[in-house]
């Protein structure tokens, strides 16, 4: 093994685990989510012709969800995926996203945390194994010593399926960061966004997480909704900042074509805020949060002190991430050194069928268990490093990117594009670090496109 290879394999990586179920699909959301309906538990979406059912409440939903079977499948998947990767460290971060992972029984979620934080699954995660008994298996002697760096474990939670007790149970299984889907503190906007909670519920959820001793609490917020003034957007983030959250994700409402909002927008039936006001709201949110002591460290993310979302920083810095669970995306370096992006099947039935036990098939090869598979060549990886890194206030460490990807960044064409952007103040560069000045973030896509 060459020195370069060692360095390669020692790079930090993250694990993303997707939990697909939700109480109800939000009209703006284009992530894979499956509303919990007792008779149609495992199929994504629902027939549009059917009248929408009233959503279940969280306790009823939890009663019908296949908590243990899903955890079993994720563990089998993990066991199949790890050997192909030559990893020498455990993940630096684990992120449970969804869907609504706060619907998942914490002890089942905890089995996945345990397996991942050990750097591998228990030897025998068979469905028959008693709950909790899985922790007994010691790592086999040939497993290299794992880095003992602090591990960030985040769970996305929804105020409708989250309380202090739930928070404590999550903390008990190793979760140290909660990301709460607040979205708004205005009753009308919450209704417009199709959320099932009210402002009070959102604030209570934050308080519950803090009381339960969750070390880091983050809130998600959507601004730029029709009828919202920039002042209102700023006031809302100020209120949230005052709750004690140490991290905020503030997203301008984006209409994705494959959502209910997308359909309404195509028909011209969705009220939208003027682009100029969205831009002003972006600036107002930035000013309000910076004044509260938050650092605007990524286009849509703010953190107090050092409370950055480490897992997400991994994406923006181009680290690998293992994707587990229905519909999850992963981007990994395979044993041979080539980089692969894959997406698991979005069908829960198919996912559960695919991971029912030990499998000898190559989990990275095409098959029913995958919905998508894209080899990422070094040139493409470098372009992705640019498009991701330039979202950060710190920008991209170009020397490191070139060294890790093994491709020269500054082709004559790209150099000319860079110099032109530098002259117009749309880009900054200190010889190593390349970044977009925050006052140009509203135009980041065009700037990045120039450099690709």
């Amino acid at each position: 093994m060459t020195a370069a290879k060692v360095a390669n394999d020692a790079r930090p990586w993250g694990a993303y685990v997707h939990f697909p179920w939700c109480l109800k699909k939000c009209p703006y959301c284009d992530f894979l989510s499956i509303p919990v309906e007792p008779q149609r538990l495992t199929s994504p979406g629902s027939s549009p012709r059917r009248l929408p059912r009233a959503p279940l409440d969280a306790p009823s939903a939890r009663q019908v969800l296949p908590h243990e079977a899903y955890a079993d499948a994720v563990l089998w998947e993990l066991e199949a995926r790890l050997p192909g990767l030559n990893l020498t460290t455990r993940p630096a971060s684990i992120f449970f996203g969804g869907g609504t992972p706060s619907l998942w029984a914490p002890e089942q979620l905890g089995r996945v945390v345990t397996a991942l934080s050990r750097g591998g699954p228990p030897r025998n995660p068979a469905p028959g194994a008693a709950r909790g008994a899985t922790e007994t298996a010691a790592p086999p002697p040939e497993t290299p010593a794992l880095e003992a760096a602090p591990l960030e474990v985040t769970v996305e939670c929804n105020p409708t399926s989250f309380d202090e007790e739930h928070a404590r149970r999550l903390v008990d299984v190793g979760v140290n960061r909660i990301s709460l889907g607040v979205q708004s503190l205005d009753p009308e906007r919450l209704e417009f966004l199709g959320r099932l909670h009210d402002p009070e519920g959102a604030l209570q959820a934050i308080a519950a997480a803090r009381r339960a001793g969750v070390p880091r609490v983050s809130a998600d917020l959507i601004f730029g909704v029709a009828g919202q003034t920039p002042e209102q957007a700023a006031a809302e983030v100020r209120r949230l900042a005052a709750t004690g959250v140490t991290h905020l994700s503030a997203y301008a409402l984006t209409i994705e074509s494959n959502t209910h909002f997308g359909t309404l927008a195509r028909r011209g039936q969705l009220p939208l805020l003027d682009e100029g006001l969205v831009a002003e709201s972006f600036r107002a949110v930035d000013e309000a949060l910076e004044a509260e002591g938050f650092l605007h460290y990524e286009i849509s993310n703010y953190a107090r002190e050092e409370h950055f979302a480490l897992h997400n920083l991994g994406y923006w810095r181009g680290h690998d991430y293992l994707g587990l669970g229905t519909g999850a995306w992963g981007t990994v370096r395979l044993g041979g050194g080539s980089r692969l992006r894959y997406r698991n099947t979005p069908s829960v039935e198919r996912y559960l069928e695919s991971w029912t036990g030990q499998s000898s098939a190559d989990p990275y090869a095409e098959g029913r268990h995958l919905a998508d598979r894209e080899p990422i060549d070094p040139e493409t990886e470098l372009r992705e490093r640019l498009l991701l890194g330039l979202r950060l206030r710190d920008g991209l460490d170009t020397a490191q990117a070139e060294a890790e990807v093994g491709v020269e960044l500054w082709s004559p064409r790209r150099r000319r594009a860079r110099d032109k952007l530098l002259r117009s103040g749309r880009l900054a560069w200190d010889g190593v670090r390349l970044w977009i000045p925050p006052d140009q973030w509203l135009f980041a896509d065009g700037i990045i496109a120039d450099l690709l």
Partner: protein
Amino acid sequence: MSVDPSRIRNFSIIAHVDHGKSTLADRIMDVTGALSARERMEQFLDKLELERERGITIKAQSVRLRYKAQDGLEYQLQLIDTPGHVDFSYEVSSSLRACEGALLVVDATQSVQAQTVANTYLALKNDLEIIPVLNKVDLPSADVDRAARDIEEVIGLDCSGAIFTSGKTGIGVPELLEAVVQRVPPPQGSPDAPLRALLFDCWYDSYRGAVIMLKVVEGLLRKGDKIKLMATGRTYEVTELGCFSPHPVALTELGPGEVGFAAAHIKSVGDTKIGDTVTHATNGATEPLPGFEEVKPMVYAGLFPTDSADYEDLRDALSKLHLNDSSFQYEPDTSEALGFGFRCGFLGLLHMEIIQERLEREYGLDLITTAPSVVYRAKKKTGEVIEVDNPSKMPSPGDLELIEEPIVKVAIHVPSDYVGAVVKLCEERRGVQLNLHYATPEHVVITYELPLAEVIIDLHDRLKSVSRGFASMEYELAGYRPDDLIKLDLLVNGEPLDALSVILHRDSAFFRGRALTAKLKELVPQQQYEVAIQAAIGSKVIARTTVRALRKDVTAKCYGGDISRKRKLLEKQKEGKRRMKAVGNVEVPQEAFLAILKLDDTK
């Protein structure tokens, strides 16, 4: 030893694009055994990839074939390929002059097209024996009676001896070859006369320089001979003689009636003139063969690199392309808006597109092409006459006495249902009707005199659209005529964009100015500030639109599952920007410079 002229048959194939000329030519090579099975890839004669994609033969290639006829004798059949587009009619004419006969190939599922008619007339003018061939008879929609009647009534050619073929199945090809032997007259010409050979094609070979394709009309041409190209008076020594069969075969001599190629250390194709006469440097002929003309570009446009750092590359690429195609001209040009580039002259719009595509594809250049312009003649008050091939050279109105524009005679063939629409279109384009002739109750030939400038502004596309694709057209230069022409300028944020200036008739200036600014509003992407687009005649603004400022262009969420999709979107955005040119601080896309060609007259 050269073959006795009585055993030579020189012929070409006249056909409309898509009527199956190349397939039929390949089938002829098949039947005569010229190609091995492995080589029977489709359309061997269309060499360049670009041509194949467009289904057009641009550079003629001519093949010598051996054929044993039913009379028991062996004949040397010489197929002379001709370019198949209106822009290259002089090259077609030169190729036809090398033949004694021609196959008029008409798709039996379609009707006679304008291009076919024009080329048939060219062939008749050169006294060629014409054999009508109805092709694609294997298709269920073939209607040979109607196609034959069309040929008789539209072209006036007797179809009683027409041959029915299918290039696809090979039906009728042996009969066709027999007809060539029996009906095409052998070339006449004495081997003892001083050498006169027609130069009808030329291409560039990186080892041999310009290689010329010749037909010896009289006399003998041998390897090692000193030859003279009569139009330029330059002399060369023939280092190689040969023919294509279809692979190159070396020869020691070419006798009367024979066709072949010669290499003679000629530096570039620019040193040769299509239609020129080749003779011996000493004791040569005194009179050249008739019919030689200098080809002149009809359409001019500016070519600029999107990235000004590519200027040198563009210059190198143009000079390389010019080695192989001397029919386009180029000279350095500068534009305030676009920087350094070249003003290029082309035979026509298709020729322009082909050159542009080759520059982009073969040389990897990103180009901005300005709207094509014709060559105007401006008479100044001082009496001086200047040729205006670029709107920026237009004298100011105060200095101008008179401006004349090139007029073309356009023949349009159209089914009778669409006569009204075609006439309306020509009238809108300042046309003067010369003739409207019902060749058959369904097939109408409309002849108009139109300003060339109106023809190159999308007339062909519009004609196709008003006739549901059925109309076809063909044009030839018919002189110059004065008219009330003015220069229309476009301003972006108050700055004149010289590359967008056009010369127009005063009557259409208001309408086109408004349509142009509206079109540019669609094409110019939103920038971080408002962009005003104005059309002006002199200092008078006649139309204005505004591109609103871009307020935001940023993706809110980008996490692990978004990266591929996001990257593809940004790559697409970049692709769009690659073809943009920064004019001042405004990004203007390539399409904007050709907007004048895309205006919808019906609005």
